[in-house]
């Protein structure tokens, strides 16, 4: 709710003055006590080329050794590596998650590099959204893994941003709070640094990239925040080694020509970064992530799924009604599809049946025809056989008769008879 809403609501509530001390001024303290007992949670995403000093800067910022190993330059794709640590300072517990990119900027073709980072951030938002939409949810126990701050490490070329930096930051500025830092700043002299910062900010502005602005609406911190907004991006140097200066051991880098002290404000902006990121604005970063970036994600996601805030008659629609309506629609759809499929099935079966019947009839016809032909042939053959048999019978009869005659007229004119026989047999 904005302050104007509260003011309008207050039209019904009239301000009263108290005549004594009631005690509700301890409410902030109660809140703080509860939060301290619960512990805080903070997630940082570090994007930068391999070897630019992300892990070293984290070690320096949080004054511990996170035991990161060197990554190689030959990763085929950009990956993200997340590690969670439990830190404690006085009685405040912090659950810190540091996500580092691995292999960013090493590939020949970097057109897909930003996609992996965007996908990771969206996944964290998605899991929070799922938890929020659950029926039985436990949000206060939920380990919030959404990214609260993104430190983008710019290589100290001294001229301007790289093309990859611009493309990536454009894609990320609506999803996460971007804080650009110039890494390895001990390679840029003071005058060059001033020009470099101006160039970077002008490039970001002219391309419409919205980086995180430290909040200036709270009077206690507005002055320092406005000043810091003008020093962005911070030029930082990280170091895990200590060098003796005077009689103290300080974090520094030792060169043959001098010693760069990390915590010397003259040398680099490390102290400013630590103050802004951790001491002053950590809670604001978390709030911005939740109220701005997460809400934007949620709205886009739900609109995609078809939810609206008001139905066509401009009446507010509750989530439940929308759910019901969607479910109905979905079920109806399902039923319709089932019907369709069934109909199609029946139709197909019918078609097949008719086809088969046709085929059967045809076959039957053919069979009958063949049978007829066969019987015709058979009868013909039978006839022929009978005629042949008749012939054989006649022939054998004639033969028998001839032999008989031959036997009878054996003693008389055998030649004559023979001739006659021959003639007779020639007749047959």
């Amino acid at each position, binding site marked *: 709710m904005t302050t104007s809403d509260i003011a309008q609501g207050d039209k019904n509530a009239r301000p009263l003055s108290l005549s004594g001390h009631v005690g509700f001024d301890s409410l902030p303290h109660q809140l703080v006590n509860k939060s301290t007992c619960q512990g805080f949670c903070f997630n940082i995403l570090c994007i930068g080329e391999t070897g630019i000093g992300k892990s070293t800067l984290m070690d320096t910022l949080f004054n511990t050794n996170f035991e990161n190993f060197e990554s190689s330059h030959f990763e085929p794709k950009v990956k993200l590596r997340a590690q969670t640590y439990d830190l404690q300072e006085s009685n405040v517990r912090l659950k810190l998650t540091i996500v580092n990119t691995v292999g960013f900027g090493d590939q*020949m*073709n*970097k057109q897909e590099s930003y996609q992996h980072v965007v996908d990771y951030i969206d996944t964290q938002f998605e899991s929070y959204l799922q938890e929020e939409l659950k029926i039985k949810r436990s949000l206060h126990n939920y380990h919030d893994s959404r990214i609260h701050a993104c430190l983008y490490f710019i290589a100290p070329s001294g001229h*301007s941003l790289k*093309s990859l*930096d611009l*493309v990536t930051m454009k894609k990320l500025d609506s999803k996460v709070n971007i804080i650009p830092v110039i890494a390895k700043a001990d390679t840029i002299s*003071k005058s060059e640094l001033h020009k470099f910062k101006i160039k970077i900010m002008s490039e970001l502005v002219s391309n419409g990239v919205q980086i995180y602005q430290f909040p200036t609406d709270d009077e206690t911190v507005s002055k320092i925040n406005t000043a810091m907004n003008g020093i962005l991006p911070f030029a930082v140097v990280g170091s895990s080694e200590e060098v003796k200066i005077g009689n103290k051991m300080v974090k520094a880098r030792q060169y043959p020509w*001098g010693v760069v002290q990390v915590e010397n404000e003259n040398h680099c902006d490390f102290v400013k970064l630590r103050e802004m990121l951790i001491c002053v604005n950590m809670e604001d970063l978390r709030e911005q992530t939740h109220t701005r970036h997460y809400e934007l994600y949620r709205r886009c996601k739900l609109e995609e799924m078809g939810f609206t805030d008001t139905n066509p008659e401009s009446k507010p629609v509750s989530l439940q009604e929308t759910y019901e309506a969607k479910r109905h629609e979905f079920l109806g759809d399902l039923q319709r599809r089932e019907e369709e499929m069934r109909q199609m099935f029946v139709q197909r079966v019918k078609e097949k049946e008719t086809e088969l019947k046709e085929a059967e009839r045809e076959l039957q016809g053919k069979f009958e025809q063949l049978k007829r032909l066969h019987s015709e042939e058979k009868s013909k053959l039978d006839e022929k056989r009978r005629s042949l048999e008749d012939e054989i019978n006649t022939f054998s009869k004639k033969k028998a008769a001839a032999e008989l005659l031959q036997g009878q007229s054996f003693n008389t004119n055998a030649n004559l008879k023979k001739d006659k026989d021959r003639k007779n047999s020639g007749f047959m």
Partner: protein
Amino acid sequence: MTSNTRYKSRALRSEDGREEKEYVGFATLPNQVHRKSVKKGFDFTLMVAGESGLGKSTLVNSLFLTDLHKDRKLLNAEERISQTVEITKHTVDIEEKGVKLKLTIVDTPGFGDAVNNTECWRPITDYIDQQFEQYFRDESGLNRKNIQDNRVHCCLYFIPPFGHGLRPVDIEFMKALQDKVNVVPLISKSDCLTPNEIRKLKDRVREEIDTFGIKVYQFPDCDSDEDEDARQKDRELKESTPFAVIGSNMVVETRGQKVRGRLYPWGIVEVENQSHCDFVKLRTMLIRTHMHDLKDITCDCHYENYRAHCIHTMTSKMNTDNRVESPIPILPLSTPDVETAKLIKMKDEELRRMQEMLQKMQQQMQHEQDL
């Protein structure tokens, strides 16, 4: 020896009274070479390659103590998203003690700057090949009096010091150029590394160059008759490759002297201080001792390779096309028959293979028909 001294004949000042017939006089040859070369003048083409912002122009200015890039226009990040690599040339004439040098610096703006850098070295290799081809034509022409030698003699490749070693784009670039030009890798902007880190990075880079088999320019070994001092220097030179350099356009005052350097709140980096960086070693190697060696290797090695390759492709094309199309006069090769015979054999084999395949397919079809 300057061009003014002349070698006095030893016979006139002979101290032990040797006879004249022992003296011929060709010991003056180095003198004559020196004189002629000074008259002719020298030329040198240097290419610098690397991502923008690594200090290439500053280093070239520091090396040759001039300002070569007066009005440079640097592109913004959004203009560089899909930038292609250009080749720009600057030529200057500089003179020192009567010796004239025509120096050409070939710059490669846009290398490695786009989001998609696949094959970004192609314009560079094409340029080098073009220069070789031009020289090849000139050399084979009829009038060879004034040949302009634009071949690239050395390529300085700038490795960013912000990583842990070589990156894929570095390796691809050096491999693409190793057979065409002398590649000298340098670690740029080394004032962001402590001496320990420099050592580790150099070891890493040398190791990766070995692993990936990249042929960078190797210093020739010292002659055996050089004295120990020179040999020591030579050894040191070889052990400190790749050189970690810093460049500067500004002159600062330190310890009462004006030197080229960079001013920081925590100290002053001197470019010519050997304990700060290897700039002096690079300058010595590039200009004072090995310039001519670089030119020789370019002429004798890279150019000859290119020439042989060119002729080979041209003659094999001629033999297959049966046309004489080459723009240069080519003497018939001593073994053209071997070439044609080989080609004929190859083509025969191909034909045979195709016939076999056809047969197999026909058989299969028959088989299926029979089934």
